[in-house]
């Protein structure tokens, strides 16, 4: 039911507990998980891992697990994501330690965005980003996303960045 997609350096596939949970637990044990509801213990990290297959079952879409082609290692998550209570469906991304700084999030998010437009039929898409999350802000910038409005949730004002439209993205790919 969950398709498998590909980019130059990544395979986007369903999450697999056997290979993906330990790296997820390591991510959620680190301070870097602060923008994703962490840090937290292993049992909590497992619950956060279970969110993804659940999201697919509830929405019919969800974030993909990222597997680095060269090593076969789980690199993170990216794809369409829409928690109830958020203003719009969005494209999310997350990279495990050691996979940052090489453009992998941009590569994965762009594939997720194309999947949302071409397969799910989305006419527009955003990403919500905490203003202190510098690496994610740079990914949004590289994707050509533009800050459009802010959305207050809990104690933080998330910036909502509007992605390139399906037409513009198709034109760039041509």
């Amino acid at each position, binding site marked *: 039911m969950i398709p498998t997609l590909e980019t130059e350096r990544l395979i986007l596939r369903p999450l697999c*507990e056997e290979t993906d*949970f330990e790296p997820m*637990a390591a991510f959620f044990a680190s301070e870097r998980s602060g923008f994703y*509801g962490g840090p937290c*213990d*292993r*049992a*909590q*990290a*497992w*619950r*956060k*891992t*279970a*969110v*993804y*297959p*659940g*999201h697919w*079952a*509830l*929405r019919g879409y969800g974030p993909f697990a990222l597997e680095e082609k060269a090593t076969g290692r789980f690199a993170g998550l990216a794809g369409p994501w829409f*928690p*109830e*209570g*958020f203003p719009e469906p969005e494209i999310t991304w997350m990279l495990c330690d050691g996979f940052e700084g090489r453009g992998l999030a941009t590569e994965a998010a762009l594939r997720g965005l194309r999947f949302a437009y071409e397969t799910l039929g989305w006419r527009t898409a955003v990403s919500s980003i905490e203003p202190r999350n510098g690496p994610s802000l740079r990914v949004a910038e590289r994707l050509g996303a533009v800050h459009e409005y802010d959305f207050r*949730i*809990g104690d933080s004002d998330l910036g909502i960045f509007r992605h390139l439209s399906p037409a513009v993205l198709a034109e760039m790919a041509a």
Partner: protein
Amino acid sequence: MIPVLETERLTLRAPEMADQAVYAGFLARADGPSAFYGGPLREDQAFQRLAADLGHWHLRGHGKWMVVERATGRAVGGCGLVQPTGWPRHELTWWLIEDARGQGYATEASRAAIAWGYAHGFDPVETHMRDENAAAHALAKRLGGRLIARETFPDGATRDVYALPQPVAAERRSA
């Protein structure tokens, strides 16, 4: 893939998108029982809880059902067997919205879930709870629970652990 169980008054079925309002309503309350379930939670956090409960079935093959009051068709809570990786024991867990309490629904749903557990390799079916969760202690005793351990869990809380016996056939009617 997720089985449907029927009791005298209740149907236990897979959680679905329409259950978001019940999750969010229950978990939003700062008072009352939602504190035992990590509440109060925002709407998006409640959605992630719903997704995680459904994802638990996909990853484990068991999990929490939605408990539906058959006479009205409304979802009134959840019940089932859960165990995240990193948590040392499985547990029978349940929650009910306030105006569905006091009618024996937790007992009725639990018996169906316990019977399903014994039929699927949980032997014994267990539950554990914080000392201050009086409702959960009372339910474990009502279900014939036997205290088998007192343990400190990874979150630092010490809990009583009960083994729950197989319900006798007359008390359940599962489909």
